[in-house]
């Protein structure tokens, strides 16, 4: 099965994606990750205002099979969370790069985002 790896995003080895616009980045999990998880039934998001460091566990996603931590791909402050995805966790499966986003970060170090995996490198990691 082919998985989507959009060309305009950066990726963490732990399967989160990052869409950067200025000093704000939107975070979600990849199509590959949602496929591995299978049906997502619960999402727990960080509190708005929480400061996170790159690599810090800050959210939880639970599927019918397992529960997994979600890690901040970059450091910053959580400025918005996607309430729609906590109300309807299936959005993570249906639109992982769209309505299934998790939270937005005000980045504290733009260089961290630049150091994440390119789409090509992430595709290679997942064996695509």
């Amino acid at each position, binding site marked *: 099965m082919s998985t989507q790896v959009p060309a305009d995003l950066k990726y963490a080895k732990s399967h989160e994606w990052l869409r950067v616009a200025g000093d704000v980045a939107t975070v979600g999990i990849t199509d590959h990750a949602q496929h*591995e*998880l299978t*049906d997502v*039934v*619960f999402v*727990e998001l960080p509190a708005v205002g929480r400061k996170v460091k790159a690599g810090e566990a800050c959210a*939880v996603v*639970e*599927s*019918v*099979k*397992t*529960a*997994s931590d979600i890690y901040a791909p970059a450091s910053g402050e959580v400025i918005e969370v996607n309430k729609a995805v906590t109300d309807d966790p299936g959005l993570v499966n249906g639109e992982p790069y769209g309505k299934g986003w998790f939270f937005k970060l005000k980045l504290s170090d733009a260089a961290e985002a630049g150091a994440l995996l390119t789409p090509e490198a992430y595709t290679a990691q997942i064996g695509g």
Partner: protein
Amino acid sequence: MPKQIAEMLIESVTMELPDTKTIRLQWPAGYDVDFKTGQFITVYWPDAPAYKRAYSLSSCALDRGFYEITVKRDGKMGTRLVDWAKPGDKLWVIEPTGRFLPVFDPPGKHLVCIAGGSGVTPFRAFAREATRRELDTRLTILYSVRTTNDIIFREEFQQLEQENERFDFYVTCTRLHPDDPWTGRRGRITAEWVKEHVHDLPNTVFYACGTNELVEATERLVLDELKLPKEQMKTEKWG
């Protein structure tokens, strides 16, 4: 045909480890579904019907009148089940499904079952059925845990080994203190260790149940290194 869904009473609970609980679900009157050892059920609480989790059956198809699942404290459902589920509570249960099935027919196969942590639970069902039916199927479980305190079903597996000379249960511990008196194997499951237990490759079927990492490593061993066809490999990923 739609899957049968039934509300079941929690008949009993057993703490296997401080973070792992076996829950026995009593079939309601008239409930009698056909299912196979190795399948999983999906459960949800009556107050949260949209929030479902699937668990391998740790009981086998010869166990009638109840299902048993063995749950680790993991996520919202795992925490609620381990910390709060008690006899008398009720859960909704979607009937068993899944293709992680032991090859007991044709006879004479050797099933090499590789498990990590709570991934061992379906293999208790395999061992129970093979032993009770006195099958000539050979069954070997290779089980990876962090420490000896993390071994689920240790006593039952040892008892089944006594009853069934064709069943072997091996444990490897990955995070034991060097001074621990454990005399068994230490370290992760390796290709060499698995290969030590394979004596008739064409008649061996490999099973892997646990984390994606463990399952994918086993797939690489069986499909890439041993060059076996996919039909000799069955997997169940639980995260």
